[in-house]
């Protein structure tokens, strides 16, 4: 598909303006307000709730797809049993390693290594 340089630049700067507004405006406004305690408590739950959702979306849902919904997989993507999924094992290793070492880089690299190894073996 052919795109003119003008339309490409319009796309880039349009997306930039929209994303920047979404990020910066709430930061600039809210960091100058006194936030009520109930809202602060609500926000205090937000990071862990977001992470719970992200881990599920990135690890569990692909594992469920690979085990029970082979039709939904991209062409050539392997199907795994739910009990032998490289992603679930990789994530579990990352979690355990972080729990005991507190090292993000160590936990991430170990998770990748376990994932790659199981992907190769299974």
């Amino acid at each position: 598909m052919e795109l003119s340089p003008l339309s490409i630049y319009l796309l880039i700067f349009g997306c930039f303006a929209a994303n920047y507004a979404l990020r910066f405006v709430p930061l600039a406004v809210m960091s100058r307000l006194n936030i009520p305690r109930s809202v602060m408590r609500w926000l205090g739950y937000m990071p862990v709730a977001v992470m719970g959702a992200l881990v599920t979306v990135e690890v569990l849902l692909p594992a469920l797809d690979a085990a029970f919904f082979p039709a939904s997989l991209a062409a050539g993507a392997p199907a795994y049993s739910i009990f032998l999924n490289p992603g679930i094992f990789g994530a579990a290793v990352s979690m355990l390693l972080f729990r005991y070492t507190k090292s993000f880089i160590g936990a991430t690299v170990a998770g990748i290594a376990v994932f790659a190894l199981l992907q190769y073996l299974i």
Partner: protein
Amino acid sequence: MNIAGNIELKQFLAGVKDGFPIFLGYLPIGIAFGVLACQYGFTPLQAILASALILSGSGQFVALATLAASGSIAASVIACAVVNLRYTLFAVTLSPHLQGLKLRTLAWLGHTITDESFAFNSARIREMQASPQSMMGLGTIAWLGWICGTTIGAIGAQYVGDLTAFGIHFAIAAMYAALFVALANNRTQIYCGIVAGLLCLGLYFLNHLGLGLPVYWFTVITAIAAATLFVLVIPDKGEPLGHEEQIEAARLEGAHLRQAEADH
């Protein structure tokens, strides 16, 4: 350089070091974006400019896909913004810890908000180890990772080969798993994360029954639902919440400990 500047530089570099896993995780996705953008007729420079300015994995892919499907710039920009509405939630969540900062500091911090930088900074805030400088360092290294990946994809895709064999596309998921453990630092927080995850599973099965909700909505819907549920159900124990309150609590605790020592 004065002492304050030195401390700020140290904190910035600590953030850079902390953010290195994000740099790694962004490389393969950035490469994929660089390759795809060039297939759509972007020059390498345009692809890199897009990544530097937009800094949004899913948003950039959705913008390209929408443009290909509809040919409309406006539709692509709107689609990109809709996918990234969660950044507003992240900005609001971080804002109590960024009270009173200069606008130019917020201008850069705001630009570098992504799922990954939000999660890392939240974990460090909880450990009382985040400062505006460390957050800027972390955001900067993440931004550079995204730009590096895009550059490699746009100009050198044929030399890279298939990185999926090395499992590097799993980097983001592995990082999320570690970050979940970092953030789930007490029982209530663990339950809240699990509830959000279970709600995601619920939406996933509803999708298989024909709901048709795009997956990028899962995070923001389930996180808001879980946090709302917990703030309503769990009673307020009066724990320190804001940045200043937490510093004050730590200071008081230190004073108590010193007093106890002196009494002893």
